[in-house]
Each structure stands twice: as C-alpha cells, then as structure tokens.
C-alpha cells in the first residue's frame, strides 16, 4: 500500500506547535516589525534550544530531519520570525561537526550570499559567511570590511567582497534543504497574510457590500489560497525526498526547486493581492500586513536566479544543473 500522505505526524505537529508558542512568547510580530534593529540573538538562541536547528543535524538519530525542518519553518513563516533560516540549515549540513554544533546551538550565526549579487542578509551580525555558487556552497572570508546596508523596506544587510574557499561537502543536498525551508517559510507567511486579508475582506464594507462579495477581490484571494496550499505541499514533498534519499540525487534537487519556485511565485503574487485588498492600510508601518510582506520580499529576493529552473530540467536529463557554474 502506497503512502502518499503529506499530513504532519504527531512529532512534527508537536514541534510546529512548540514553535508557534515560542513565537508568541518572544513576540515575533514585534521582532518582524523592528527588522532594522540589530539581530535578536537571544530569541534566536531560544529557538535553537527548542531544537529548531538540531532537526537538521546530519547523521544524528534523534534529528527530525527535513520533514521536521519543514514543520518548523512553516510555523516560523506564519509568525514572520526573522533570521537566516536557510543559511543556518545549509551550514549545519555542510560544516564540520564542531562548527555545525555551534550553529545548532544558536551561538554561531550564519550569513549566506545568494548565487547573485553581493548582499548578505543579517551579515553584520554573522559569525560565519557562506556563499552559494551554482549548486555548491563555499566558505567565504571577507576580502574587505563589511558595509552595513539598509535595504529597501528597512531590513538591514551587509555588503562585502568575499574571498571564496573550496566547495563544501554535501553542498547540493544542503541547498535542497535550504530551499525547502525557504519554501515552507514563504508558504507559512502567505497563509497568515491570507488569513488576515480574508478577515478584512469579510468585514470591510464598501459600495454597500463587504469586499468579500466582489469577484475582483475573491478570485485573487482564492488563487492565493490554492497557490499557498500547493507550495506548502511541495515543500513537504521535498522534505520527504530529502529524508528518504541518502544522497543529492536529481529528484531531491528538482523537488526542492519545484517547492521554492512555487512558493516564491505564490508569495509574490499573494503579497500583491493582499496589498490590493488592504489599500493604504497595507503600507502603514503599524498596519496588519507590511511586516509580513517585507519579510516575504527579502526571502524571495534571495531566490531570483536560474538555478531552480535548471534543477527541474536536469531531472529530465536536459541542460546542465548548474554544478559547473
């Protein structure tokens, strides 16, 4: 009998619930709203103590694996909790065990440079810098001092010229984990955004009706719902691939790529839809959605490259998969 069941099991539900409680306790909403402030290391270490990063420890019997990572990131996304999540999971999978342990404990913070550009989200606070190049991850040293950069929307980044080291072990598999974590995070964030927006649409009246009675509002929201649902399922699907395969096979990379591409598209279009519904209220700093859409923009912006599409074609045996890039 086949098991094609993407519901979380009890353990996964339980860590998800723990993360949700944690987010409430540390007031993740305030953290997300203050994204221009220095990084909240205390909260990050608390999150680590919950086991949020240990889930990804390779070759550890009690690690929950990618499925647990997926449940954790979905919950963090729902709360727009800030921090270099994908970078952290990638580091845990690629760094030597002693360093990985520091990352797992939350005491070492990792910044990852995407495959394009030179920006490092949370870079000024980072202890370790990694860089993605095609489908490899490399350790990076600062060739010059890091500039603190205030990015659009107010989240802060570093910018630095990097000297790259050798590719790290297990890179492709680690990147797949990072991608599915980002996909789950985006899916979670979009779910909250959608819930908030749907409530607004159901109650706000204009032209003698609630907004939720206008097809110009409901159809985009319905699209958002189905895209968010599919993105989350694809993230879970990629997590199953990760946990059931020992190596960085083409299917794993393609599954992670499908999840991330779907989540990024869903979140991009969904954020736009929700801003449409909220109008001016959406761009007020104290309003109900801006701290979510800003987080979404940051995560999406790190995914803008050709690599995911290439991974999907590589599974068909077509093109190259970016290894040689």
């Amino acid at each position: 009998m086949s098991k094609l069941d993407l519901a979380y099991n009890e353990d996964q539900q339980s860590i998800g619930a723990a993360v949700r409680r944690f987010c409430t306790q540390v007031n993740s909403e305030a953290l997300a709203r203050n994204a221009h402030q220095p990084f909240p290391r205390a909260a990050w270490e608390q999150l680590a103590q919950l086991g949020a990063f240990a889930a990804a420890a390779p070759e550890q019997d009690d690690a929950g694996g990618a499925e647990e990572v997926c449940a954790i990131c979905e919950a963090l996304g729902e709360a727009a909790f800030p921090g270099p999540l994908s970078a952290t999971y990638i580091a845990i999978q690629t760094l030597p065990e002693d360093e990985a342990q520091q990352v797992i404990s939350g005491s070492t913070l990792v910044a990852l440079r995407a495959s394009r550009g030179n920006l490092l989200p949370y870079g000024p606070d980072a202890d370790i810098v990694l860089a993605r190049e095609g489908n490899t991850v490399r350790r990076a040293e600062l060739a010059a001092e890091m500039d603190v950069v205030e990015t659009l929307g107010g989240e802060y980044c570093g910018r630095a010229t990097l000297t790259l080291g050798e590719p790290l072990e297990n890179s492709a598999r680690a990147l797949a984990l990072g991608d599915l974590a980002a996909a789950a995070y985006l899916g979670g964030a979009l779910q909250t955004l959608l819930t908030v927006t749907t409530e607004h649409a159901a109650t706000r009246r204009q032209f003698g009706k609630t907004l939720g009675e206008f097809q110009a509002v409901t159809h985009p929201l319905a699209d958002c719902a189905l895209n968010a649902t599919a993105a989350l399922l694809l993230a879970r699907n990629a997590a199953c691939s990760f946990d059931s395969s020992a190596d960085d096979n083409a299917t794993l990379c393609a599954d992670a790529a499908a999840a991330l591409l779907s989540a990024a598209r869903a979140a991009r279009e969904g954020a736009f839809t929700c801003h449409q519904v909220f109008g001016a209220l959406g761009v007020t700093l104290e309003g109900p959605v801006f701290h979510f859409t800003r987080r979404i923009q940051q995560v999406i912006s790190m995914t803008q490259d050709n690599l995911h599409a290439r991974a999907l074609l590589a599974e068909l045996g077509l093109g190259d998969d970016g290894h040689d890039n």
Partner: protein
Amino acid sequence: MEFDWSQQDREHRQEVREFLAAELPDNWEEMSRHGPGGDSQAAFSRHFCGRLAEKGWLTQHWPGEYGGRDCEPWRHSILGEEMWAVGEPRGSQYMNVNWIGPSIMHFGTEAQKALHLPKISAGDVLWCQGFSEPEAGSDLAALRTRAEKVASGSDEHYVINGSKIWTSYCNHADYIFLLVRTDPDSSRTRGISVLLIPMDTPGIEVREIPSVVGERYFHEVFFTDVRVPCDVLLGEEHTGWNVVTHALQFERVGAARYARAALTLDHIARVAAERGMLDDPIVVDRLGEARALCEAARVLVYKVIDLRAKGSPPTADTQLARVLSTNCDNAIGRLALEIFGPESRQYASYADNNFRLAMTAGVAVGATEVQLNLIASRFLELPRE
C-alpha cells in the same frame, strides 16, 4: 508524513507501461490525435478496455461484488496517470470507471447495477454525459430539458424534450447520463433528476459541432418526445442535483490532466534541448516555472486522492486541484508559443495538444470561475455574493 509509492505500486506502474507498449498500435499517435472522442480512438477503446478488463485493471478500484478488486484509489490513479500521459486509450470509458459506475453503485437500483456495472467492468460500453445546455453553460442548475411523467394505461413513461450542448463522445455512446428537469415548477437545483438512457432510443438526434479541439469533441443532442420507461431514473426523482454533485466530486480529479500536461511539457523541453535552446535563460526559466506548476497540480490532486483513500468526505481541496490543473494547461499552452516563436505553430504540435491547450484554455473557464467562487466561499469562508 510519507510520500512514496509502495514497491507493489511501482511494479504496477511498470506493468502498465509494458502493457501499453505492447497494446498500443504503431499508429497510435496518429490514431489519438483527435482525442478520446475521435472515431478511431473510440473504436479502439472497446478492444483496449476489454484487454484492460482481462488483466483485471479496468475497474480494479471497485468493490469485488461489482467486478472490482477492492484496490485503493492510489492504484487506480497510477492507471489514470499512465493512460492520460499517452493520450487516454480508454477513450471515453475513463468516465465509466471514474464516476459513472460509482454513481450507479451508490444511487442505482439492483436492476440498474445488474444491467450496467458488468458492461462497464467488461470494457465494452461507451457513455456520454448530458449536462450543459445552450442556456445553461457552467450554470448547470439553469437547465431546462424536460422529462414529463406520462401514464399510458397502467404503465408510466418519461417523455423527454429539450437539448444538450457541448456533449463529448456522444456520437459513439451507447448510453447517456442525462440531467433533466422532472418538476416543471421547480427552479435551480430542485426538481432535477438523472436518467440513464440508451442512445438508440427513438427521438434522440446528435449533431456534431466542428471545433478546433479535435474531431467529434463537441455535439448537440436533441430530444424530441423521447419516451423511456421510468426505471431509467437514477436515485430519487427530483433529487438529481445530489447525484450529480456526488458524481462530479469524482469526475473533477478523475482525469489526470496534469500527467498529460507534464508529458507535453517534457516533450517541449526535449525539443528545446535538441535545438540548443537551453542556453537561453528565458527558455530555462519558462520551462522551470511551468514544470513547477505541473508539480503543484500533481501534489494537490494527490492530496485529494489521499483524502479519498482515507474515506474523508469531499473537501474544497477538490476545487483547488481542479483550478490548478486548468492553470497548468493554460501555462503550457502559452509556453510553446513563447519559447519557439513562429515555429511553435508547427513543431510543438505534439499530438496536436499544445495548440488545443493554448486556444481552448478558456473553455474550462466558466468552470474555473465557478470553482474560484466555491474556493472563496468554502475554503476561505467568504460571504457568497
């Protein structure tokens, strides 16, 4: 969370593929270019479904008492994926096994079950569905075709007058699953019934509507004083809306369109690779996006099958899956044009599929809008307009 096919299911997929390789004639691509309703494919389907029945696969997901093997829905979905991927050699009989048979099992009398289910299980009967009407497209509940109960002596008959449109497969069909208004004073979803009627009943006339979607795809069916015995009624009189709602829950994800779409996309990608186009990042991007969309449709359909396998009542996930499958068709239909430019009009014509997808993307739309309304009201719980 587990997401993998069992060893037996993998083996079944492999068996089905080998079976297809052996059974499909050499000229299958040509034979299938007009789709499941084409003349040659309809004829072939009687032979092919008979062979599937011999293998025990045609209705393997049905209960044993009705000629099935009590397999779980996953097993049947494998068959569906493989069939759609090659252009549906079951012809219109995919409807029989997906929802017409199951509706008869659920709502039928013992006599109806005894009459219809063995034929369907044997793979030698063609059905069509008589739903849409000229004045009731996606708005099914506006239907007007009238079945009047008329007494003649001690006997009662229905006398049917009206017409159906956009009916697929009916030129070859033996039976029609017909939606009629039995209570003339009713409106919308009340007073509707389902009748199971032989297509050779006098007074039924079929006229093809030529289209770009393939030979014999669309028809009008006219009913003029068509007289049928009352025992063709499926379920309770006037409650046909329940029957059809039940049936459509199965129909809506029964056709593994995403499998067909994904195969078409793979073909396009291969052509692009052959022509050295994968150096162009635009082409890579567009193909990757479309493939992610196919995966999204697949995983949503799987969720619905999973719910069904677990015996869950129907949920709005069915609508999500349906809309995303349509989006997938649309995207792939546009893709060939975008990446091949002028050449798309010839060499992307894999079994004529792309163009049909591109030009007919809108066809499903009435439907898509209805689905989006349902998602808004059922899934998001927004007020109904």
